[in-house]
């Protein structure tokens, strides 16, 4: 028999004999790999689902005629285009090779359900448009009923009908944003589905769409064109080009599809997948610690066995090989299981996201080879690399160790460790603080953060002894004292076990602190700049608010309780070359309801060529009162605006404020995003709010918020994000928990005789269980405390480093962090459960007799 097969045989029998020892490693790899594979599969699945959806929406469209110029503002990728003349459709229809041409008159339309509440509006767009008669050009198909024929008739998509409990024959309201009473005459579907993801669509007659959805009649977002038989998309576009007016382009249906796909897959999905991959990385990092720890303990426990092998003539390589073979075997099985698990996770998440309101289209799972191979390889590498160091140590076992009493590794912190750790910690903290405080520089801070994390890992064993003594100080009863002594036995092992939890808790705390600080900042900004009593806000975020009727503000102003009501709308223009959002309002009245801080210059009399600019933007681009800027609007007109005022607070006002008169010639859809209302003296908040709500009811019933509610709503989106982050990080905590449980199981195994002795001299089972659980809890407390400290510190650094203006708030949310701490401790208590039960089941006689 060859030497290799002997080594293999020993590994195999060892694996069989110690299945339990490797259970923790197995699950750590399995979970990490599952998450990674799940992320990749889900990314591909979503991408494909979106692609299919867009392909479907435009499949019958061979060419699109639209304005060539799109103005994009930061944070918005679709861009805003000037409408084209709807009448162009008729002109295009007459060209050779065109089978059909229809204008696409689109706007926002928030549909109200049978209960009077808006359908959707919390993310996916709520759209309205003309019902395109040509079924091939229309992305929607009639499922029931008929197309709208006369004023007030509408077709809604089946998803919206289901959510809003609406059916054919019902009457309801669509906010365009002016409320339009409609009667539902048809239900549509989107390629056989209920709709385009969670998007709602209300199809109106062309006349209604022209009248309500666009500010000027005869405006359409684009013209959809279908080619005649035998005419290719490119031939069609070539035929269209000569007849189009200046500034209007024709693009193939193919290009439109690709554009949409690029916008969703390229930007949104990449970011989303990237975020998930980061969490998969964190999970695997945590797993690395657990795996390394398991192998280190197993090797330590096997010192005598390995020494015996060495004494009997096994080479160093054979001993190393034996451990590595075990690692590879566990890695292969766990990674393979992980890949399968990942597909399950992807399927599960696919079902979960729509349930929590994420606007993802449905589709079959897309499983690419890369999504299977990559996680498998990563799992293999992580597991094998983690086992490498313990394996090499196993190889160094001296044959003489077989003769000595087994010394379970008890090495404390070495001098080198102290020095390296201290230097790393000092450098890391210094760099982080320097990067955060001066500059600020995200680069420096990140480098510092990594160094600090490394310092925490290196210093773990040093800190473990102090921390366990401090945390265990209140444990005076014998059970607790024994637990404390056990945790102190190998600071290295305790630290390695706790590190996994520490990293998990640190990342959770970091996100918590960061999100809380952002929320506080947003909240402060809004409450600082809002001087009114209530605000009426169009619901929705993400895809953009749905808009309020411009008639709402004047109507509210009529109320006897109201001193002033100011509507603020949004516009867009390219200012000195870069796209920017404009706030469209009555600037002179802004100080009534908004606190603009110090205003340099005058907000009165901006006229049609004046603009007010925020201080931050003015500083950035060098504007002063009196300087001029060139505005290019979507319709292609260029106008020179003079800066009349510079104001400090941009929380609500935004960066550029122009008058309604200046915006009017260029506007797309007339709407306000918020109406700020100030009450007369002596009007109570409740009375005033009730009165305003009474008026708002006739304008589609938008939400009326008090100061505090308004401020809170600014940061509401963050909570959903945070929930998702928590859900993902729970995985890292779970892996850490497995690590603690595994270490304890191994420790219990190692201390069989001690436990037997304790039982013989009178420790009850309950006391024994409590002892193991206390140890688990102490290790978890150490990890949690370290993680909270590290997370809070790095959170602070991140807040400061990413806040170049220096106006951001730093907030440590006590409630959330307490919850995080409790979760960490609970993880510890849970992790100790099984090992404690196993230890308590121990047969006293067998334990005493164990050689």
């Amino acid at each position, binding site marked *: 028999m060859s030497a290799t097969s002997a080594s293999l045989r020993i590994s195999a029998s060892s694996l069989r004999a110690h299945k339990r020892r490797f259970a923790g490693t197995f699950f750590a790899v399995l979970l990490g790999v599952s998450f990674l594979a799940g992320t990749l599969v889900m990314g591909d699945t979503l991408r494909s689902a979106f692609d299919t959806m867009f392909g479907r929406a435009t499949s019958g469209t061979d060419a699109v005629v639209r304005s060539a110029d799109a103005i994009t503002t930061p944070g918005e990728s679709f861009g805003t285009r000037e409408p084209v003349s709807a009448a162009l459709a008729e002109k295009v229809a007459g060209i050779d090779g065109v089978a059909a041409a229809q204008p696409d008159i689109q706007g926002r339309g928030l549909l109200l359900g049978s209960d009077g509440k808006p359908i959707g509006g919390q993310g996916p767009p709520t759209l309205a448009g003309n019902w395109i008669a040509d079924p091939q050009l229309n992305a929607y198909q009639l499922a029931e009923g008929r197309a709208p024929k006369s004023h007030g008739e509408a077709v809604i998509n089946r998803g919206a009908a289901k959510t809003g409990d609406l059916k054919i024959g019902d009457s309801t309201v669509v906010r365009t944003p002016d409320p339009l009473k409609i009667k539902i005459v048809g239900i549509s579907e989107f390629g056989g589905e209920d709709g385009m993801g969670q998007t709602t669509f209300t199809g109106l007659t062309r006349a209604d769409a022209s009248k309500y959805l666009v500010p000027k009649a005869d405006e359409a977002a684009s013209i959809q064109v279908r080619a005649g038989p035998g005419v290719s998309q490119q031939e069609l576009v070539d035929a269209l080009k000569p007849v189009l007016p200046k500034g209007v382009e024709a693009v193939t249906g193919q290009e439109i599809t690709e554009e949409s796909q690029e916008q969703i897959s390229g930007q949104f999905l990449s970011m989303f997948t990237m975020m998930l991959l980061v969490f998969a990385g964190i999970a695997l990092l945590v797993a690395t610690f657990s795996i390394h720890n398991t192998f280190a303990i197993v090797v330590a426990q096997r010192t005598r066995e390995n020494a015996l092998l060495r004494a009997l003539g096994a080479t160093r390589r054979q001993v190393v090989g034996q451990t590595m073979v075990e690692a590879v075997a566990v890695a292969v099985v766990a990674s393979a299981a992980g890949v399968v698990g990942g597909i399950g996770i992807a399927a599960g998440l696919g079902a979960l996201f729509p349930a929590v309101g994420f606007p993802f289209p449905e589709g079959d799972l897309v499983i690419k080879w890369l999504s299977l191979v990559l996680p498998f390889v990563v799992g293999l590498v992580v597991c094998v690399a983690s086992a490498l160091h313990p394996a090499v140590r196993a190889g160094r076992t001296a044959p003489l160790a077989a003769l000595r009493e087994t010394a379970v590794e008890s090495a404390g912190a070495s001098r080198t460790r102290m020095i390296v750790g201290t230097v790393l910690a000092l450098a890391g903290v210094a760099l982080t603080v320097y990067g955060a405080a001066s500059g600020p520089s995200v680069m420096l801070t990140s480098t510092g953060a990594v160094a600090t994390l490394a310092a925490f890992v290196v210093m773990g064993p040093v800190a473990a002894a102090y921390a366990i003594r401090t945390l265990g100080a209140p444990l005076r*009863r*014998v*059970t607790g004292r*024994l637990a404390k*002594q*056990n945790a*102190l*036995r190998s600071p290295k092992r305790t630290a390695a076990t706790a590190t996994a939890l520490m990293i998990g808790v640190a990342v959770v705390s970091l996100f918590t602190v960061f999100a809380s600080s952002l929320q506080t900042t947003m909240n402060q900004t809004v409450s600082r700049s809002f001087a009114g009593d209530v605000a009426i806000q169009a619901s929705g975020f993400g895809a953009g608010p749905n808009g309020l009727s411009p008639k709402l503000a004047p109507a509210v102003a009529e109320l006897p309780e109201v001193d002033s009501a100011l509507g603020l709308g949004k516009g867009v223009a390219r200012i000195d070359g870069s796209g920017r959002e404009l706030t469209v309002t009555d600037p002179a009245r802004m100080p009534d309801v908004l606190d603009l801080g110090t205003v340099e210059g005058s907000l009165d009399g901006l006229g049609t060529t004046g603009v007010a600019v925020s201080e931050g933007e003015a500083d950035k681009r060098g504007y002063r009162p009196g300087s001029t800027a060139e505005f290019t609007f979507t319709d292609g007109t260029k106008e020179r605006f003079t800066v009349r005022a510079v104001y400090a607070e941009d929380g609500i006002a935004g960066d550029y404020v122009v008058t309604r008169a200046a915006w009017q010639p260029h506007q797309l859809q007339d709407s306000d995003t918020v109406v700020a209302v100030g009450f007369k003296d002596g009007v109570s908040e409740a009375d005033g709010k009730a009165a305003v709500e009474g008026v708002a009811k006739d304008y589609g019933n938008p939400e009326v918020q008090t100061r505090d509610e308004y401020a809170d709503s600014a940061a509401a989106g963050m909570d959903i994000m945070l929930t998702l982050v928590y859900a993902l990080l729970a995985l890292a905590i779970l892996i850490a928990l497995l690590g603690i449980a595994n270490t304890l199981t191994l420790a219990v195994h190692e201390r069989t*005789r*001690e436990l037997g*002795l*304790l*039982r*013989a*001299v*009178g*420790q*009850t*089972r*309950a*006391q024994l269980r409590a002892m193991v659980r206390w140890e688990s809890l102490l290790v978890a407390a150490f990890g949690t405390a370290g993680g909270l400290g590290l997370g809070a510190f790095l959170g602070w650094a991140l807040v400061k480093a990413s806040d170049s203006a220096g106006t951001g708030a730093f907030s440590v949310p006590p409630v959330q962090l307490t919850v995080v701490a409790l979760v960490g401790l609970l993880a510890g208590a849970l992790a100790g459960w099984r090992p404690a039960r196993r230890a308590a089941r121990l047969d*006293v*006689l067998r334990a*005493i007799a164990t050689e």
Partner: protein
Amino acid sequence: MNISAPVLTAAAARVIDAVKVYGVDDTEVRALDGVSVDFPAARFTAIMGPSGSGKSTLMHCAAGLDSLTSGGAYIGDTELSGLDDRRLTLLRRDRIGFVFQAFNLLPTLTVAENITLPMDLAGARPDPEWLETLIDVVGLRDRLHHRPSELSGGQQQRVAVARAFAGQPDVVFADEPTGNLDSRSGEEVLNLLGRTVREMGRTVVMVTHDPVAAAHADEVIFLADGRLVDRMQNPTADSVLDRMKSLDVQEARKP
């Protein structure tokens, strides 16, 4: 120096018709086959017998570490078979002391902590006067704050003896207490056990295979094939050795 002198006639521990069977059917082994024996209070009793005679099993069953298949085991008047695990544990903690062959001490605790461990587990305060006396008798006053790993094997066993007697138990069971020691350290430990019985009136039951060790006892009982075959008062190493030899001969003659 005699602290308390229990009534000499009472049995500190006893077993009646003790039967212990391991395995079933073909693999059935009768480790104890109807043993009845008293361990009188304030006496030092040694249990001897060849390997496999059931001497360790007898001790484990008498001390509540193992249960009998049939028959009864008593500590004082308490029948052990009627007790659940918890009550047995409490009984061991409060009324029995143990000295094992090896691994008697928790490595994480100091000598002093090891000695008071059973009382700490009970949440009871040790009798300080008794504890001081005990520490002097075993001669470990200067080692109280050391860890077991800093002690020699003999010192470790002496700590174990102190631990066994610290709670003033009804009876102390010692399982080959000198098995891992050199003869001088072994002698020290045996003298210690002898002194606690003769000077302090304690009760000791010791399992051993060493005639020299058995000679320290007041009485030796001999087991063979799970049966009680002989008792010997005031043994000497030679008399014990002779008896053992004759037992071995009987073993060899068996079919």
